[in-house]
């Protein structure tokens, strides 16, 4: 017999439950994919169109303004594409996951399943888009004549995993907070807009070195998104490595967000059906 009741634990139990119910996670993921492309003409091509459009817009913008927002030794196109892909992963997982519990409340209040699966399914969807979109880097690098650093390119996988882990921590916070306080859903778009410019998405960190003193760069790089994007560009195209203090801070923040997110989610989950 399995007993449950009010608990104060840290929430690691949720992870084993998620693993036990992984088939449901897959079903949710499949459902999200199927629904997204139902009654859509261009279909799955949207996954590729979005980063391409983003890339073209910023390429156009900066060429009209006559500024080089990229790195000094790498073409701008792959720089901005890497940024756009990462940003798409972050923003779409944040957006979809934040509403995931609230939008599904008619089920959340009627059937039990590990609630963490819902935001995770949104993250899985965003990851799927990210992986498909990453294939675009191959033709873009080839067309712009960008030299890929073959010795470090495999590191892109653990770096992407780091970014996904950070997203997982954030969405655990966002989705459960939104279930209790709907303000989160309203505030998110503004925060995301700000976040896009606070992270090196459409520009390279190199451009900031002129503005931010080296003394303050570590603070900027404490943002795990900034560090992950910088690391990805380093691994693929050989741009300068982020500072070690910045990376250490970003790693610590990621761990903090993930663990606290897990624990908060469990805490919030216990009142979810009453409060949502």
């Amino acid at each position, binding site marked *: *017999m*399995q*007993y*449950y*009741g*009010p608990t104060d634990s840290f929430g690691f139990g949720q992870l084993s439950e998620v693993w036990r*119910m992984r*088939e*449901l996670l*897959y*079903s*949710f993921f*499949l*459902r999200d994919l*199927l*629904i997204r492309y*139902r009654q859509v003409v261009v279909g799955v091509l949207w996954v590729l169109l979005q980063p391409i459009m983003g890339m073209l817009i910023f390429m156009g913008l900066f060429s009209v303004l006559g500024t080089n927002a990229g790195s000094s030794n790498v073409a701008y196109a792959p720089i901005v594409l890497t940024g756009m892909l990462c940003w798409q992963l972050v923003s779409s997982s944040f957006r979809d996951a934040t509403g995931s519990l609230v939008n599904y409340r*008619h*089920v*959340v*209040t*009627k*059937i*039990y*399943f590990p609630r963490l699966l819902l935001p995770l399914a949104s993250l899985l969807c965003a990851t799927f888009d990210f992986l498909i979109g990453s294939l675009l880097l191959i033709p873009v690098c080839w067309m712009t004549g960008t030299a890929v650093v073959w010795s470090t390119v495999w590191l892109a996988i653990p770096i992407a995993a780091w970014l996904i882990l950070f997203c997982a921590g954030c969405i655990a916070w966002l989705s459960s*907070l939104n279930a*209790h*306080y*709907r*303000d*989160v859903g309203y505030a998110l778009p503004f925060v995301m807009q700000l976040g896009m410019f606070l992270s090196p998405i459409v520009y390279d960190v190199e451009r900031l070195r002129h503005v931010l003193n080296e003394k303050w760069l570590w603070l900027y790089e404490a943002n795990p998104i900034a560090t992950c994007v910088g690391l990805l560009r380093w691994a693929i195209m050989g741009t300068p490595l982020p500072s070690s203090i910045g990376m250490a801070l970003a790693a610590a923040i990621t761990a903090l967000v993930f663990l606290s997110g897990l624990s908060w989610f469990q805490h919030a*989950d*216990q*009142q979810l*059906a*009453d*409060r949502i």
Partner: protein
Amino acid sequence: MSIETIHLDKVCKRFRLGTANEYGRLTEAIASNVVKWLRQSPAPKPSSCSDSPTQQLEDGWFWALRDIDLSIQSGDIVGIVGRNGAGKSTLLKILSRIVTPTQGRVGVRGRVGSLLEVGTGFHPELTGRENVFLNGALLGMPRAEIRRRFDEIVAFAEIDSFLDTPVKRYSSGMAVRLAFAVAAHLEPDVLIIDEVLSVGDQAFQRKCLGKASQLGDQGRTILIVSHNLSAVANLCRRAVLMQNGKIVADGAPESIIEQYLSDSQSGGGQRRWEDDESAPSSSEVRLQAVVVRGNGIDAPTGEVDIDREIVVAVDYKVLSNNAKVSVQIQVKDETGAYVFWSANAPSMSVSPDPWFGKPHPRGLYRSECRIPANFLNDTRYFISVLIGPEVGVTSLRQESVLSFLVHDTGVMRQEYTGSWHGPVIRPRLDWKTQSL
């Protein structure tokens, strides 16, 4: 051999009443937390539910369940009865883990399938086939097993030709059938059903009840909440009566249902005052009983079918000889909305009441008022009784002396199957369209 599959150990559940913080604002929560921190007072700990004599606490909290101890063996089919708000649904939600108890612990052995609302988890954009897999997974069935039992599910639901149609185009009956078919075939060790069998046609209801009883024979545990007492009596092997968040009786279904019906507080359709001391009275009359029954049914009932005339009978004793007595009733709904008022005056009655305005010799009288069929909505109504020497003058008044529930039989759901929630009454009116 039967083993224990469900065990509840001193389970309590506390809810917040009203809208306070229901859709709380973050700013308010932060502000109140800051205030709390400044005052250095810790968050109020819930006082133990067993200490609390009443369900409702002063600070806006409410004990929906108090000290529930329950043990259920495999193969048991248990019906849970009680009036609205007794805590039946909360109990089922705690058993199916949707709601976490405030105190106590819940133990369940094996897989739990819950059917708390029809078609829960169905996504309108997905086809029937896709929804079977999604819903099966939601109920904890591995994909391989769903694939294996897929044909059986579809056959039971009788929807083969609509398999690849989005569920949004299904009739509600088809959605119900599919939902029950998935839930019944996932072979849960514990199946929890809340009032879902009240939808769907008679034939399908019989089929569902048959399936449920078959599952019970296979040694699975089934819990049912239903207002359909005959279904509880026929299907269940054990029943539990809940009242004000507590289990007040547990035993054979027949005796529990009898207790439920005879209990005046449970809305069993009658209120009697046995001793003269406690009976409400004035100098002229003493109230003896108020009874609600369906037309053509002798026994009082707390639940009347919507398409049946409702008879409200007021029994009273006239104490002073040749007193003039006029009986009036007021009907209000659950929200307190005043539905109607009526007296036995000739101009207010379909046929004149022979005793109206006449002096009543001492003795027992019964005044009956008939509320037409297909007039009230399917909700709970409260009757107040007023007696006075003439209409508009009240010497005896009993507020909300009795309540009854109008049961929707579906007579007005041939074309429209959506919600009737909202209107205070649901009269069947005369409609005619003509081309001009």
